[in-house]
């Protein structure tokens, strides 16, 4: 099983070797994918570039000295004390959610800071603190990903982007925001001279960017992604969304026929998500007044945890070809490591800015 999962966390060897060339002595830029479901950091690790991640979730448990001691004995649990509660955050959250039979809470929703969650910012800050090293010198560059503004949600994005920028600046970094889809293009489309469509399908939203020669021409976002699938499937089959997520992540494949009601529902909502995504992209490209001329078909790269199940690419291709698409598409492929693509792209942007 472990061998089968290698592709889920291992960065593509080819990309790593390319990035290896970037690492010059004395500079420690950082790229961060601040996603609804996970926060992934790409940074220098020795001579190489390494990615680390934390689940972007938390769970408060009642404080007691015994609980705190138990937590301290386990080195992989991140927590802080808040009055009479212990807030466990990051990747250990799921374990505690199962232990206490409670739902993990999220600092972010639909790609932005969760306005309904009172603890959103303290927890996100703690998660970032656990991943982001202190800058070694002044003006060290840190690039963090932000989604494209969905219509009517610009103010939320402004707050989200400014909060993150302020946080990283206060740590001593020269912080810069980069569009999520563009970061995917930086990580995956170097051979195409950063020309093509980068799509990031995360937990809270899907982001797509069409770029020519690294310059973003169209950026769209869809507030529908992995969480939407979990929630909808859960409602349809009477299961807990958390359980749907676990099943989805443990070997669910879109390429094989559904074997039960839950898988059938997963198929349905994946199709719905991809249809919405392709439709959004199609409309945005059709509406664009002036696009740079390109005499060759453009590649599409899919990244993010939601693009992970086998068969996602094929389903996307089928949906794409079901109706005329305004530009010619050369290929559709899944990023070599869908989880870390955005963070790696942000790292390249940070290297550029250093």
């Amino acid at each position: 099983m472990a061998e089968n999962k290698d592709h889920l966390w291992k960065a593509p060897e080819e990309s790593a070797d390319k990035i290896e060339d970037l690492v010059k002595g004395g500079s420690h830029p950082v790229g961060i994918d601040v996603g609804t479901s996970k926060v992934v950091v790409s940074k220098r690790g020795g001579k190489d570039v390494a990615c680390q991640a934390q689940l972007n979730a938390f769970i408060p448990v009642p404080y007691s000295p015994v609980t705190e001691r138990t937590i301290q004995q386990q080195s992989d649990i991140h927590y802080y004390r808040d009055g009479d509660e212990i807030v466990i955050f990051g990747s250990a959250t799921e374990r505690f959610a199962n232990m206490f039979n409670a739902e993990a809470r999220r600092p972010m929703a639909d790609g932005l800071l969760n306005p309904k969650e009172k603890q959103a910012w303290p927890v996100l800050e703690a998660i970032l603190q656990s991943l982001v090293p202190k800058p070694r010198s002044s003006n060290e560059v840190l690039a963090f990903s932000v989604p494209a503004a969905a219509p009517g949600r610009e103010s939320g994005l402004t707050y989200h982007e400014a909060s993150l920028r302020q946080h990283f600046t206060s740590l001593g970094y020269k912080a810069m925001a980069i569009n999520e889809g563009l970061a995917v293009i930086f990580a995956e489309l170097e051979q195409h001279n950063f020309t093509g469509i980068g799509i990031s399908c995360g937990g809270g939203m899907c982001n797509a960017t069409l770029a020519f020669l690294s310059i973003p021409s169209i950026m769209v976002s869809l507030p529908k992604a992995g969480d939407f699938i979990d929630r909808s499937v859960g409602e349809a089959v009477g299961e807990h969304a958390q359980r749907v997520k676990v099943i989805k992540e443990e070997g669910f494949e879109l390429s094989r026929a559904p074997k039960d009601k839950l898988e059938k529902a997963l198929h349905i909502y994946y199709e719905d998500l991809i249809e919405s995504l392709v439709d959004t992209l199609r409309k945005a490209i059709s509406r664009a007044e002036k696009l740079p001329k390109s005499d060759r078909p453009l590649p599409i790269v899919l990244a993010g945890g939601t693009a992970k199940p086998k068969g996602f690419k094929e389903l996307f291709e089928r949906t794409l070809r079901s109706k005329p698409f305004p530009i010619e598409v050369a290929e559709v492929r899944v990023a070599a490591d869908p989880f870390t693509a955005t963070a790696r792209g942000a790292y390249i942007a940070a290297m550029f800015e250093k």
Partner: protein
Amino acid sequence: MWLPRAEPYNSRSEKGLPPAVPPRRTVATRPSAARVARNVPKAKPGRVSRIGRRPLAALEAELRRIRDPVEKLRFIRRSLDRFETLDERLQALPGAPLRWVAYRLTGVEEARPLFSRNPWGALDPPRRTRPPLPRRARRTLNVAAVFVMAAAGLALASYPRAHGPEAKPPAAAAPQPRPTAQAALDPPRGGTPERIWLVDSGAAFELYSNGLRIDTSWAVRGEARRYRVFTKDGGMGTEVLDRPVGIVFHTSESDIWPLEESFNQKLRDSSQDLLRYLRRNQVYHYLIDRFGRVYRVVEEKDKANHAGMSVWGAGGRLYLNLNGATIGISYETRWEGGAALPITRAQLEAGRSLTDYLRHKWTLAPEMCVTHGLASVNPRKHLIGHHLDWARGFPFAAYSLPDQYQVASPAVQLFGFSYDERFLAVLGEPWPGVIAAQAALASEATASGQDIEAVRVERVRTYDRWLAELTKDAETAEKAAARDARAASGG
């Protein structure tokens, strides 16, 4: 906060399973084709694509030779920047036919959709900056500037002799005011602070609506506040108070390193060392480091050690130990006599936001916001200026506070304190408030028909008596607290 080191990313760990494999980096060490192909030419720094009939095609052709993604990105962005500059110049050409020819020759028009003000796709794009001029152009400009300056100098030097009347000797320059911190600052801002509220907070910070961000990661609890107020006629009050009523501004007098990049390590370490010392000894409530970061050291509602031997008062109320009654703010700096402002711009701004916040939160009277140098006394020798930090040069006006240097010193006027040689050696002369207090003392002595020395001796005795009462009261309270603690623990 307990923060174990983040492990390399492994999706398995998120499911609470023990990792089946040792932690791994996401990078393969095997050299790729890209690394092996060392003979592939890299883009030279600063190189850009040539402009021809089809500049984008030419650019893409050149990009094929670059394998390094960052170099490739740099090459693209530099080339596009050059195309944009050229486009701007061509647009300025006079006459449409000429422009048409120029565009036909350069083909730069096709790159126009790529001229972006937002090349990173963020909502708040960074400001564009032009790349610096090439070295040769800079050198040419510098040489030209030297020639222009030399010519202008020669012309000015020859002008009075050839054409002007004989120059009169310059009048004796009027004495310039001594440069002080006060003179170097902004004009005062409005009066009372705006409404200030907590906007956001986290495990180690608080953010307020006036932009103040407090780092709370160093904060510790101190002893509970407990103090008494004196009045001129009534002596020590019966009421025991526990709310802060003012602020005392300090300088840390710690190691200060030059604000230069090469001292980054020292700059960071010295602040951290200082914070460790302050926390251990519960000194000051706040420290503002040289980059304007505000650290809470002791909780505001508790007492910190910062101005124990001090005298200050306002509105007929006198305080003989300001530790209990005030909040201590220290700037990481050395006062150095106050001839120049010893703090950075960032410290000034941060101190202003912090003062506004504290005044708003605790309803502090501006008259009770004072510097350590103005309030510090030596109780045994009955001297003012035992500590002299900010005895001159604190930017009261910039903090919307009254100029406390003009306020009659209560230690001098009410308790007959004086100053010594050491005081004068540092300050040269006492601040105006001391002189005003001495004058007031003298006029009070005249009005009562007494010798000024006799009045002074009498007031010094009053101070000694009141201080003894205060000390006894504090000891009694301490014993009572210890007794209560013993009783609570069953001892």
